[in-house]
């Protein structure tokens, strides 16, 4: 498995701790939600970055009290058709103003990358089946979006159609269209 970030593979320096693993002196660690709640004070003092691995059937609002020490939230797609984590990511970004990383793990495929980015994911734990170019191509395959406010902040963002339209009249839009069409 490799981490994909900003369209490139990045090194994965995170250590996943189980419930009872001893917290190392320093270094970046990923803990489960139960441990985050239990060891909050200890983790707060930890020398290194903290991430939580958060199940897709728990409410994001339960994370609210812990977000101040979190550098990353890892959300999961058990299968690609289980779309709950899209909403969790969206809530974290939009309603809880979480600015750390949101990582997608589980059944992460190129076809869904663009949607994930639009909902707020910016790091992806992926297997080696596809190369960086295939991921990049998938992430940029959609050049347009109609949904307001679903735009990734960093890198290759699709066009926000409704905002673009605002600067043009219907006649202008139509004649631009006809130009494209007859070209």
């Amino acid at each position, binding site marked *: 498995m490799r981490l994909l970030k900003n369209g490139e593979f990045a090194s994965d320096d995170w250590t996943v701790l189980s419930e009872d693993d001893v917290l190392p002196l320093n270094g970046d660690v990923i803990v489960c939600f139960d441990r985050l709640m239990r060891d909050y004070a200890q983790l707060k003092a930890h020398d290194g970055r903290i991430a939580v691995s958060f199940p897709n059937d728990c409410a994001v609002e339960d994370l609210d009290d812990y977000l101040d020490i979190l550098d990353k939230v890892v959300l999961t797609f058990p299968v690609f058709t289980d*779309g709950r984590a899209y909403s969790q990511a969206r*809530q974290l970004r939009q309603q809880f103003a979480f600015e750390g990383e949101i990582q997608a793990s589980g059944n992460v495929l190129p076809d869904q990358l663009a949607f994930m980015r639009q909902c707020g994911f910016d790091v992806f734990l992926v297997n080696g089946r596809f190369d960086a170019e295939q991921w990049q191509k998938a992430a940029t395959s959609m050049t347009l979006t109609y949904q307001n406010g679903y735009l990734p902040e960093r890198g290759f963002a699709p066009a926000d159609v409704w905002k673009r339209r605002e600067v043009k009249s*219907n006649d202008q839009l139509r004649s631009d269209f006809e130009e494209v069409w007859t070209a």
Partner: protein
Amino acid sequence: MYRYDEFDHRFVRERTTQFRDQVTRRLSGELTEDEFKPLRLMNGVYLQLHAYMLRVAVPYGTLSAPQMRQLAMIAERYDRGYGHFTTRQNIQYNWPALKDLPDVLDHLAEVEMHAIQTSGNCIRNVTTDQWAGVAADEIADPRPICELLRQWSSLHPEFSFLPRKFKIAVTGAPQDRAAVAVHDIGLHMHRNADGEAGWEVLAGGGQGRTPMIAVTVRDWLPERELLPYLEAVMRVYNLHGRRDNKYKARIKILIHELGAEEFRRQVEEEFARAGTPEVEVEQRELARIAAYFAPPAYEDLQDVSTEFELAKNGNRDFANWAKINVAEHKAPGYAIVNISLKPVDGIPGDATTEEMNLVADLSERYSANEIRITHRQNLVLPYVRKRDLFAVWSALNDAGLAIANLGHLGDIIACPGMDYCALATARSIPIAQDISRKFADLKRQYDVGPLTINISGCINACGHHHVAHIGILGVDKKGKEFYQITLGGASDENASIGKILGPGFSGEEVPDAIEKIIETYIAIRGESETFLQTYRRVGADPFKEALYATA
């Protein structure tokens, strides 16, 4: 009518190009059928009993004349010379070849149409009142909101992998002709105490194996808050809808299990937290869209047309058709023409290439270039001057399309059933044909009065049998087809789910069973009491007795 701009155009083109590539890879064997399946489903391509089936979206059931001609051309060139209009206000082609599908999608894109999201666990094609913009009782034309919803729901990043498919219906009139109460979300326009038009938001209605009437989540919502509110509803469903059992995954089950009150509380909480950050952008987009739905330039006409009145006096068939198939229009001197696609012995909703072309011609000549598709599988010419009605009728009559049975016994809804559908447990088209033959006499139909008969070929209920006055459901019993009859369903503003009458009947017995039900009604009805009113007054007992009392 809405016209694409460069963005809409590019959006559809990108998708078509993508699909062409996928079909090429499937045909070369690079993709297996299993890998291809989710990709083709996202583009409206199903694998049916005999062939692939393409379901084309007709957004909110509105078509222009050139679009209808293109559909006719596709039927001619890529199918067997006909298409099938469905209860989702869509059109399906039953016989296209896989290799041709990318070309078909290109032809659709040429006339600003597509097949995106006509299947899959996403938000499907939005449906509405077939008389939107012209109905005499309407508060406002619901189509601008429908178009906004079409765009908003197209490849929605958050809601493309829902627990199950999701259907939205919208109506802008007090009389609900869009069956909003049996949709995942229904939007019903009302005025509040200050006279401002806004939306009642209903959720959790549906048919299928667990039919339910929707509950009201919010009784009045200002229009500018609609999209953020819908996002809140969708998010609660996306997060909490069941994913462990396909048959319990629709939003109706979630609402049923949580209780309406708790569901409402969760939606309101989510809505309050998410807020309405970008509503101005949406409002401006809505205003931009609304400009496309400005009514045509109406002529200043007297409401009463002498030509029309004279023609009625001179021709009884025309007079009947005008009474049954023509509805009141909001503009004086105009009328709404409903074209029944339910001839005796016909296949409900089927139209041939010639028929589609004729309707396109008529709409060009008499109806401001516009055509509607109804969820009862009929067509509408929405802007006909009363003085032109006779000419329209004559042209339809010559083509066998002046069938004066709208809303009556012969106007039967039937799903494709065993003749095409891979999920079917029984035939439905032949049952509709048998009933239409038995009740071919129009005089008899008029005597019976307003009546809906809907037929589904399996429990999925695409034929809307649950909400028919008389519903017929085909089931499989030990390898034999059986038909259950339900009574008392309705899909209007007083929606109800029909109740099963008793043991089922074989296909051959169905027309006689319907006959007995009709006879019973006629014997016990009060003065000018419709079938539904009678049923609601007396209940099922007299009908049961007539059907099951041992002779």
